[in-house]
């Protein structure tokens, strides 16, 4: 699966991954930078995401707004995402418009303006985005749970930043951050779609080859001790519904246990889709927790999941309670189910179901060029593309003993965070 990919590195350090897919007359072009909230310091929380916004505000060659129109004229789409470990920009376009993507991304890798007036206007846009997030009970809850789950690691912070830092960050802070992380040696280009890889490589050399290399971002290891105890917290806000979130430290994506825990999550809370674009999910009504919590009328719904990250992040379970039930009742049942996983091996049949579900979701995601190009770069941010191409095979190797061990190692009762959102408007149970 990984053999049909052209991988190379330009002399200036830019990594290039190209994959020809000729099923639709489209291309998807992604630029990945190794920078995100993980790289931010106290007082500058949210700066990576803000830089991402400024990348849409123009360069001398492409003043603000001209690129929106240029992309719109092709009928294509573009966007960007900032995460804990990375920031990425993509364009999915009719195949004959690939040069537009190459031109605009190579240009804004070094030439973005960061006009002071635009910085101010974007400050209020991001504060509005944050205000929108603060409207959401689940944002409030997971923010609190994340903070309680880490003492020093920057994974404790929300990518969007804090209101205080978003008020105080200045234009030069943003520009310095941009100059420090946006350069070829800290970037990866991934393109998938309907093109000739050799020819596109030549075009990439033309557009990106002359950009000075810069230095790869340093990611100093952050020592984060294990959680010393079980932590309980409560947040409240407007609403009528009680939510619980239980978070355990999870393995990094490159850890072999990540795959055991992926299978465990699938049978405990239902499969999580790997597809960022397209595909859709599979319901979780035969999962152990659905049967124990929803079928037994304790909750109306639940989900579980992990993210593929560089450092160990979290495995969390989010539960929407029935109005007539209490968090204590729910936690007791959840603990019984976790204990069951720690005490007795799961059946081979449950593992087979998880594998088949993963295979199906893989197939669903392959219809979509944007999703395929996403993985071509994303997997490199925490491991390498073989992580993705070998994903199904790695899941198939997981045994009942691996899951037993993963449950014992990663889901300890005395090292987790239990968060509860209490609505201010509802009847408290």
């Amino acid at each position: 699966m990984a053999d049909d990919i052209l991988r190379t590195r330009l002399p200036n350090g830019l990594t290039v991954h190209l994959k020809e897919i000729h099923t639709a007359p489209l291309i998807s072009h992604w630029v990945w930078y190794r920078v995100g909230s993980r790289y931010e310091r106290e007082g500058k929380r949210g700066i990576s995401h803000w830089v991402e916004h400024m990348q849409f505000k123009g360069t001398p060659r492409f003043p603000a707004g001209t690129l929106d129109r240029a992309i719109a004229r092709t009928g294509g789409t573009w966007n960007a995402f900032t995460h804990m470990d990375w920031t990425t920009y993509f364009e999915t376009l009719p195949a004959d418009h690939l040069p537009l993507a190459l031109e605009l991304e190579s240009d804004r890798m070094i030439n973005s303006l960061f006009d002071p007036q635009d910085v101010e206007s974007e400050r209020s846009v991001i504060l509005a985005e944050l205000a929108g997030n603060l409207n959401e009970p689940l944002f409030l809850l997971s923010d609190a749970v994340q903070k309680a789950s880490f003492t020093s690691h920057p994974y404790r912070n929300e990518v969007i930043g804090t209101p205080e830092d978003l008020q105080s960050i200045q234009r030069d802070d943003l520009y310095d951050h941009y100059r420090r992380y946006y350069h070829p040696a800290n970037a990866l280009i991934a393109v998938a779609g309907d093109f000739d890889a050799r020819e596109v490589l030549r075009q990439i050399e033309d557009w990106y080859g002359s950009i000075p290399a810069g230095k790869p971002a340093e990611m100093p290891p952050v020592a984060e001790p294990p959680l010393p105890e079980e932590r309980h917290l409560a947040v409240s806000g407007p609403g009528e519904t009680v939510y619980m979130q239980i978070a355990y430290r999870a393995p990094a994506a490159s850890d072999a246990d990540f795959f055991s825990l992926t299978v465990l999550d699938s049978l405990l809370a239902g499969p999580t889709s790997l597809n960022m674009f397209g595909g859709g999910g599979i319901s979780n009504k035969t999962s152990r927790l659905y049967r124990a919590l929803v079928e037994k009328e304790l909750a109306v719904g639940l989900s579980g999941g992990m993210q593929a990250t560089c450092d160990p992040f979290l495995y969390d379970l989010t539960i929407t309670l029935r109005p007539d039930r209490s968090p204590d009742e729910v936690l007791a049942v959840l603990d019984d189910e976790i204990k069951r996983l720690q005490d007795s091996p799961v059946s081979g049949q449950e593992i087979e179901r998880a594998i088949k579900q993963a295979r199906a979701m893989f197939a669903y995601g392959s219809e979509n060029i944007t999703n395929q190009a996403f993985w071509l770069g994303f997997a490199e941010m925490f491991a390498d593309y073989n992580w993705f191409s070998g994903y199904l095979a790695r899941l198939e190797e997981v045994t009942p003993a691996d899951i037993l061990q993963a449950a014992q190692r990663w889901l300890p009762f005395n090292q987790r965070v239990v968060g509860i959102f209490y609505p201010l408007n509802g009847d408290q149970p």
Partner: protein
Amino acid sequence: MSKRQSAHLNALPGADDIQRVELPNGLTLLMRCNPFSPSVVISGYLPAGSQYDPPDKLGLAYLTALALMRGTQQRNFQQIHETLEYAGASLGFAGSVHTVSFGGRCLTEDLPMLLEMLGEVLMQPAFPKDQLERLRVQHLTGLAIRAQDTAEMASLVFDELLFNDHPYGKPEDGYPHTIQNINREDVLQFHQHYYSPKGLVLAVVGGIDPTQVTDWVNRYLGSWTASDDPLPVAFPDPKPPAQDIRRHVSIEGKSQCDLVVGTLGPRRADADFFPAIVGNNILGQLGMMGRIGEVIREQHGLAYYAAANLVASTAAGSWEVSAGVDPQNLQRVIDLIRAEIRHFTREPVSEEELADSKANLIGRLPLALESNSGVAGALLNIERFGLGLDYYRNYPAMIQGITREEVLKTARRYLNGGGLVIVSAGPDGSSEA
């Protein structure tokens, strides 16, 4: 780039690669094979929507649709979901005013299972009492969450005020008190009266053999006999608001308001639908959400999102601008939206804007239609509005033919009349409150 011969299908479906079959019982089957796909999408609808709901049981059609998957004469809830989930497949139902829609997907090897399941839940649902009660509690929780969602409440109240007593003014998922009124007998009766293969449209797209799919559909849905046509529901022509209607939905404790401003728009089958989408693209879609996004988000930094949308349905349509706004800036944003709408109805769009809008609408088709689900949606659209199998191939020429004058005339017809419905939802304390 070199001009290479690619292996892909025609990016746009048309009469030469869509198969359309009508079953004797009135079911219409549409198919398109994508030989590159290892999976299949099924998608469809039948005319059993909330238009038939008694007013005091609003949400009945919606609840009936969701209850289909809760148990059949052959299988209970767990057995249904075991069959689907063990195959990594999905199947789900949703309700709207006119129709109940469904969608599912699976690996190609599991398509017979998925079609059999579709037939079984449509034709032989058991509506178990305990499952209905659980569904009711789940749905009421969903409505409680909706009541706290600023975007959903702004949109819901906007529809109520704009459409008034018209069926489009009532939320198809009901209100808590109407959901409480629904009992199992209502659900059974609703299913018996309104579920029928007549008017059911099913699209199947992916790695399929259309002949084989036709056989399977005949096997699993062919024996279903059509019931009598229900009495037609009257859809009166809604009147645009004569003057402004302003409403604020107070949801305390929230940080942001959602705002919807608009009036009636064209119906899907109206001749001015096409000039309207070309114009709306300029007003509030193109790039970072058109002129509206440019002014509100880019120039003034007043919102994280701001856009204009056309909701063009069978019996009526709306033309609305929506934005997420700091409560302090609410009145400023409303004024800016008004000014943009006024400008849009007074002066023709520029030649450049018109060209950009057309290029965008035409250029986006291959991306919209790359996936099996995108194509399935297109096939249903063709059938529902009688657009013709070559609609997507003729679309570029139709769009190209639109003039600035037609865009202006259409903008004036809908947006230059009486008033606007203006609804905000969120915390109080706006500058105008």
